[in-house]
């Protein structure tokens, strides 16, 4: 079975600072893969490479087995890659509905706008109530839901989630993971970057641990959970 997404030996960075050193990973259709590691390890950079917000200096990103090197970042949404960025990055002065509509900007998504709208509203009923409110006025949890919903509006085949539980109250975190699980049940493929290592490994199929821009550990979630190396990487013991 070929992978839906494959990152192959990618070097990347900002300016003259190199962040990623030959990162390789795979996400197969229907999986939840989690990317773990401490701050500054290169998780977000990996996601940005996949979306084309930065281009790799070496190596390549393949989607459906084809290289994305020549695909402009704003065309990747059309292929079915959607990112929920860290910190939500909503358009605060647009209403929730407008945020969702713009999520479906590319042509394929625009055609199935109303269907997708129904789908995300079923997933996050709260957004229906807040439809005409400005996104900037939502609570943190609602904003995170809105961000996920916006990404889903583009009808993705692969959803990249960057720290979805960051800064949220525990009860909202639970809801968030529940939603992720629900998406997974519906057949969505996900790549999840998460601080909450325990929760992430609980729902993920497989995981990768990155440290200073290199993949240190990889394997089935269950195996990783019991691997002492993870705890060491996080707590320094």
């Amino acid at each position: 079975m070929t992978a839906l997404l494959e990152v192959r030996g990618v070097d990347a960075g900002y300016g003259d600072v190199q962040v990623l050193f030959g990162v390789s990973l795979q996400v197969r259709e229907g999986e939840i893969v989690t990317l773990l590691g401490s701050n500054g390890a290169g998780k977000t950079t990996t996601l940005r490479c996949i979306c084309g917000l930065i281009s790799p200096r070496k190596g390549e990103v393949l989607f459906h087995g084809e290289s994305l090197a020549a695909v402009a970042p704003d065309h990747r949404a059309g292929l079915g890659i959607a990112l929920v960025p860290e910190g939500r990055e909503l358009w605060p002065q647009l209403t929730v509905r407008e945020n969702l509509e713009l999520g479906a900007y590319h042509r394929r998504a625009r055609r199935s706008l109303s269907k997708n709208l129904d789908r995300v509203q079923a997933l996050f009923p709260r957004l229906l109530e807040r439809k005409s409110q400005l996104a900037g006025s939502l609570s943190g949890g609602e904003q995170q839901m809105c961000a996920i919903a916006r990404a889903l509006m583009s009808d993705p085949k692969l959803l990249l989630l960057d720290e979805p539980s960051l800064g949220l109250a525990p009860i909202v975190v639970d809801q968030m993971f529940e939603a992720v699980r629900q998406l997974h049940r519906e057949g969505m493929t996900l790549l999840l970057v998460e601080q909450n290592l325990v929760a992430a490994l609980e729902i993920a199929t497989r995981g990768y641990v990155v440290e200073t821009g290199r993949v240190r550990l990889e394997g089935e979630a269950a195996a990783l959970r019991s691997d002492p190396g993870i705890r060491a990487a996080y707590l320094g013991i």
Partner: protein
Amino acid sequence: MSVALRAEGLSKRFGGLKAVDGVKLQLREGEILGLIGPNGAGKSTLFSMLAGSLPPTSGRFFLGERELTGLPAFRIARAGVVRTHQIVRPFAMLTLIENVTVAAVSCGRDPDLGRKALEFAGLFDRRREFPQRLTLAGRKRLEMARALATAPKVLLLDEVVAGVNPAEAQEMTRLIRRARDELGISIVMTEHVMPAVMSLANHLLVLDAGKLIAEGSPEQIVRDPSVIAAYLGKAHAT
């Protein structure tokens, strides 16, 4: 041992969000105080308040007996509390030697202190170059050298180890230890790279969602279940 830096009930609100909530902190002279906690716990906000770039919503802090609350950043720096930045902010238009000299002179110290700080950080040979030419690790060392050039009593190190490779991280750790042991500077550091903090800090504070949730020696902290929960996350509640 006397207290170098002391804060009481420091809080910062951004709109409805309490980024830092009533933090009490005590840094003893010649010690390293580690400040840890998950992303978004409020560490950087706390630093910004201590360095004077963000006015606290409430609470006070002192250097020795002198109250620093409400002073502008440059006064706090001159008083002897100097910070570094998580995302390095060298003066791009100045050479390395100028970067450190300007810091020394602005705090009323001997300009020669700049040279010494650069030597200390192992950057003296490259003093005529501009910061853009350095690697990230180099710039982090410059950031530290610039702070040291002001002859601070208290150094606030914001993630100086994170983001560099292991060899560089070790070098950095050594530098911090020397700053404490050789220069006698008291240090507060936040750090994500746990081995570094664990090996350096005399005392640890754990922050989560703006609140202090634990404090103690590194050995105590790693065994504290609330810390582990905050750090590694709780199991998903289902």
